[in-house]
């Protein structure tokens, strides 16, 4: 009986899967076009899966092994099952392999089941709770029906008259498994992640983020430019269908593991954002419906079931509720912790900025200080609205060389908007002192410099970003320099990774990288560290965005500091809360992100936290009753500088140089 039933079951499931797949693909195709080389993507798929994706999944060895066993077992079992039971090729070898595959899958599914006993909050429940059972049903069912194929069980036991009941039960189990695995995969069940995930890997909108055989590390973190000339293109994303088709595909790949949720600083602060929920809301919107069936953690403070949307309806309602509330989108610090953790390579930050673009460019609804900051940027080329002529006020007594005078130097020192901020001016003065001590040939743009456009872009004002960027590029094009050095990771990122698309290609160094190079070249000498214990906070835009984790630590090591690492450091560093314009849009939560970060510092036991970003410094120093002092790496280096004796003192009688002190840098 089974011999008849199984092929019917298998091919029915496959047929339904194909129908479902077509329907699913149709959903994705609602999105706007995106140029992807489909063939190349498919060819690259195995490597992207086995190397890049595995690199992320492999951070959790247990779940990684579980997935290898379960998914590997399933893929093999499914293929073999079609051959053996679908097409009736009852080859004992194939049968044996099928037994192995299903056994492996079964072992994997045991671990999947174990994870579902008291699952962590980040994991979605609902249909996901039945998945281990379905996996077991499939694997046990397939195992049992295959036993006769290799002769381990007499056919008669199942096929004999009178055992029809057993056969029926087995068929039922197999049908359950097939239903979940094939039908569910294409019709929106938990297994959808395998189908959409594989295609997303192949057709990812950032092909350049994957490693290459030639040794390319694979990194793509710059936001993609909006084509402001194309009148047909929407200004950002208003409705789900405004995303590109492969972005929609990406949302569909979400496996609801909640790794993003676990690392999201806004979620932890009780702000109304959960990256996982956001992606699921996009899935709801793409198909049309409400979020009532969502079975994970909600946006803090926002009950599930009150939001609904359609592919062509607005994501954010003009009034009332639609798919997502605006404050969810404005809670994001663009720290990329979610993207870094996502095993499905979903690009949450791109999606959020796409939606912000619509809110800012089409609706003019940048909340709180957002509109003021953007107005300032338009009027004064800096977010604070300061007189653009005052960008060099902090250096009136330093006689900084200007690019407009020199035209050609080794290093162009990019000041950033920290030049208007008294705290960051200390960092800049320290950096100038370091550059001078190392006798670096450098100059600044001075009042010719404009904001890099970082904040405008993250707030969704692509037009202002591009205007600033193009004018900066035009200014830079007048001068010759080998590299740009900056103490601002945001400027570093934008100049290095986002100006390229607009025609500006530069070799940009964060100051920690540059200082590390100077030290390695023997151009700096430090006195031994006498302070207390030190930890290091990785700025998001230096670390996750640009992969620079080593240089700051090398500099600290050169200073004689042994870094007491925080639990969350390196690629898992917790954001300070200062990125993405979050302090400007200032969405209330239950806690403040910088407070949590300073608590991380406290737990490390360090008395001083070294940073390398003006934004981080501002956020962390804003913490009341902090247990640790906040110093930029440049300041620590400037303090430790041992000035080398200079030759050729003038004939005038000079007093011995007073020792330079910390406060001297500040004045």
């Amino acid at each position, binding site marked *: 009986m089974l011999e008849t039933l199984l092929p019917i079951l298998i091919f029915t499931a496959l047929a339904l899967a194909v129908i479902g797949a077509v329907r699913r693909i149709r959903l994705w195709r609602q999105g706007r076009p995106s140029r992807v080389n489909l063939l190349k993507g498919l060819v690259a798929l195995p490597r992207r899966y086995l190397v890049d994706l595995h690199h992320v999944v492999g951070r959790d060895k247990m779940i990684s092994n579980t997935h290898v066993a379960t998914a590997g077992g399933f893929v093999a079992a499914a293929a073999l099952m079609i051959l053996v039971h679908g097409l009736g090729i009852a080859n004992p070898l194939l049968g044996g392999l099928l037994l192995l595959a299903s056994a492996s899958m079964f072992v994997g599914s045991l671990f999947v089941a174990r994870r579902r006993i008291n699952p962590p909050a980040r994991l979605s429940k609902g249909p996901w709770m039945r998945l281990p059972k379905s996996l077991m049903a499939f694997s046990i069912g397939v195992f049992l029906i295959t036993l006769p194929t290799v002769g381990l069980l007499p056919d008669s036991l199942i096929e004999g008259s009178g055992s029809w009941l057993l056969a029926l039960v087995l068929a039922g189990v197999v049908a359950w498994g097939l239903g979940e695995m094939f039908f569910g995969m294409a019709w929106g069940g938990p297994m959808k992640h395998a189908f959409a995930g594989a295609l997303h890997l192949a057709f990812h909108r950032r092909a350049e983020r994957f490693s290459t055989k030639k040794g390319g590390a694979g990194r793509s973190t710059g936001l993609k430019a909006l084509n402001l000339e194309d009148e047909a293109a929407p200004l950002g994303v208003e409705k789900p269908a405004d995303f590109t088709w492969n972005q929609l595909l990406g949302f569909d790949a979400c496996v609801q593991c909640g790794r993003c949720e676990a690392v999201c600083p806004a979620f932890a602060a009780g702000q109304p954002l959960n990256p996982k929920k956001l992606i699921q809301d996009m899935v709801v919107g793409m198909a049309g419906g409400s979020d009532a069936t969502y079975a994970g953690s909600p946006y803090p403070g926002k009950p599930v079931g009150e939001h609904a949307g359609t592919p062509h309806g607005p994501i954010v309602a003009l009034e009332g509720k639609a798919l997502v509330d605006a404050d969810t989108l404005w809670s994001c610090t663009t720290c990329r912790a979610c993207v870094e953790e996502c095993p499905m390579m979903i690009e949450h930050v791109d999606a959020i900025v796409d939606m912000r673009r619509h809110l800012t460019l089409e609706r003019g609804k940048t909340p709180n200080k957002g509109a003021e900051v953007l107005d300032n940027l338009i009027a004064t080329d800096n977010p*604070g609205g*300061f007189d653009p002529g*005052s960008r060099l*006020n*902090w250096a*009136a*007594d*330093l006689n900084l060389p200007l690019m407009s005078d020199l035209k050609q130097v080794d290093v162009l020192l990019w000041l950033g908007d920290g030049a*208007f*901020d*008294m*705290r960051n*001016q*200390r960092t800049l003065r320290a950096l100038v002192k370091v550059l001078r001590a190392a006798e670096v040939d450098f100059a600044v743009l001075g009042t010719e410099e404009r904001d890099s456009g970082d904040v405008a872009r993250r707030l969704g004002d692509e037009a202002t970003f591009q205007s600033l960027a193009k004018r900066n590029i035009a200014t830079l094009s007048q001068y010759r320099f080998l590299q740009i050095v900056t103490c601002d990771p945001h400027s570093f990122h934008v100049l290095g990774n986002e100006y390229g698309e607009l025609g500006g290609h530069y070799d940009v160094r964060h100051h920690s990288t540059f200082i590390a190079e100077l030290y390695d070249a023997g151009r700096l000498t430090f006195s031994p560290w006498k302070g207390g214990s030190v930890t290091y906070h990785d700025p998001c835009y230096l670390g996750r965005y640009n992969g620079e984790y080593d240089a700051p630590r090398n500099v600290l090591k050169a200073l004689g500091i042994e870094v007491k690492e925080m639990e969350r450091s390196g690629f898992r560093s917790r954001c300070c809360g200062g990125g993405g314009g979050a302090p400007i849009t200032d969405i209330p939560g239950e806690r403040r992100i910088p407070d949590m970060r300073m608590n991380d510092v406290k737990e490390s036991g360090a008395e001083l936290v070294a940073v390398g970003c003006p934004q981080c410094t501002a956020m962390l*120093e804003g913490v009341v009753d902090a247990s640790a002092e906040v110093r930029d790496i440049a300041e620590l280096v400037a303090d430790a500088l041992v000035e080398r004796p200079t030759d050729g003192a003038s004939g*005038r*009688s*000079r*007093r011995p*140089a*007073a020792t330079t*002190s910390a*406060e*001297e840098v*500040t*004045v």
Partner: protein
Amino acid sequence: MAFDAIFEPIEIGKLTIRNRVVSTAHAEVHATDGGMTTERYVRYYEEKAKGGCGLCICGGSSVVSIDSPQGWWSSVNLSTDRIIPHFQNLADAVHKHGGKIMIQITHMGRRSRWDGFDWSTLVSPSGIREPVHRSTCKTIEEEEIWRIIGDFAQAARRAKEGGLDGVELSAVHQHLIDQFWSPRVNKREDEWGGSFEGRMKFGLEVLKAVRAEVGDDFCVGMRICGDEFHPDGLSHDDMKQIAAYYDATGQVDFFGVIGSGCDTHNTLANVIPNMSYPPEPFLHLAAGIKEVVTVPVIHAQNIKDPNQAQRILEGGYVDLVGMTRAHIADPHLIAKIKMGQIDQIKQCVGANYCIDRQYQGLDVLCIQNAATSREYMGLPHIIEKTEGAKRKVVVVGGGPGGMEAARVAAERGHDVTLFEAAEVLGGQITIAAQAPQRDQIAGITRWYQLELARLKVDLRLGTRADEATLLDLRPDIVVLATGGQPFLSQHPEWGYSENAEESLVVSTWDILSGKVAPGKNVLLYDAICEFSGVSAADFLADKGAKVEIVTDDIKPGAAVGGTTFPTYYRSLYEKEVIMSSDLMLHKVYREGDTLVAVLENEYTGALEERVVDQVVVENGVRPDEALYYALKEQSRNKGQVNLEALYAIQPQPSLSEEGEGFLLFRLGDCTAPRNTHAAIYDALRICKDF
């Protein structure tokens, strides 16, 4: 950026100043070796530059000629080329930290003393006596005028060759240039007087000669007054005319403007407004001058607070603010603004200890900052943490000495506990601040309160420490700063008793602290003639009492400095307080409901009586030594301070000696009654090496 106006650079002539804050010219009384800017002088200005001050104009009343005496106020002597290398040291020290430095140059004319040094014959346009210095002078002759004009030019050359960034010609405080300007003093009928142009001629010739000598790329400014406040002196309109006249020459790079003339005691007090004045009382005069000139205007007078400075600059009243006493109190003022440490700025309280010392020819010191102008001795403005052991330091007494001791010990990183018997910190400052117009002295305490909180000093207020409590804390060091009590028991005839019901006299502390209500008809006997007596008299009169203040000294408030006794006198005369001198308090007795005070004339011995309902006596402080003697024998060092180490600003040798038990130091009035500065200085120099 809350202080953007302060931190906007400005061009003066061809010079870029990094911010808008100036330490304006004042006599430092630091120049040594015949008026040379030696190490103390250099370090004093270097500290300001290091602390971020934009421009220092040093050398108030630095002389250009040998007949303008240099020695009285140890001012800088620009009459000799000997000064040039010293200027180079000074300029290097300031420039190294990004600051700029100019010097005020002047000939003081009649405004000096002749009875010493070279026994100069002072000169003045019309030979009219100067009352404040009681100085007589001769009528200047044409030859002398041209000589002095040449001296100005040579002095400017020396400043330039020494690497300074400019000179400020003093035409203020009734120096020679403005002696020529003022019709009160210039009665000449020749070309150097009479008409407006005649009175302007000397200053103009000086300016022309200086400019011809130094050229266009060296700053030359003028300091002028905005209104002399003398009915027959130069009015604000006169000064506007004068400023516009010199501005029109195109040879002046900036004007420094201050309010008030100063050739009487009363107007002198305006020039350096003490704490009785409102903030920036004469800003309107400087703003008036700014209206008529085309170059930057600097104004200094009672600008002490960064917010105030920002407000003035933002309002555009003037281009630069002088924060001179503010920098004496805290040379790191600007750095602290930049560090976001506004609360850590030690703000000038207008006690005028600095300027009142200067008028006596003593070196300028700060009442509350003992490190100022002692930088050369190694006294630090920023206390470094100790690299040695962390000690348990117990300070007893929350007056200025105790607060400074606790602050310094805590900055060193020690574990500090401070006991104060009263419910609030401050000691005698708290009492002093009760008098009318003296409330700002409490700013000294306010700063310590903030610092001690920041440094997490364990404050035990309202707790009188006894021997057992102290020793329970197992201290490594005990600092006693317990002060003392009013010394009313010196003469039994005064009828003082510890029983308040029986005592015939009360102290000024009783009155100011509110412990004893003011009488209706009060005799206040002041044997000390410092602030406390006049403060109590002012307080009593303010509460409606009829007051006679009597002293055996030359006048009530005789020991109050030159810029402060006038503001007391204004208040006392206005309230009809009777001031009597040369009388000692012989005896007090009770007669019915009234008290009879018997006074004895010091010079005739004659007795006179006053029938009053309250006798208040100010007879200074008797040290409170009980706790000291209770602890002395148990302490390792027997309470002794090594004077050689103390005076040399070296660590007390006992600090490095091994041994069991605690070290004991006492300072301030519990040793001998001195003043706030003495207590703070001792605390700093003893505790800085803990």
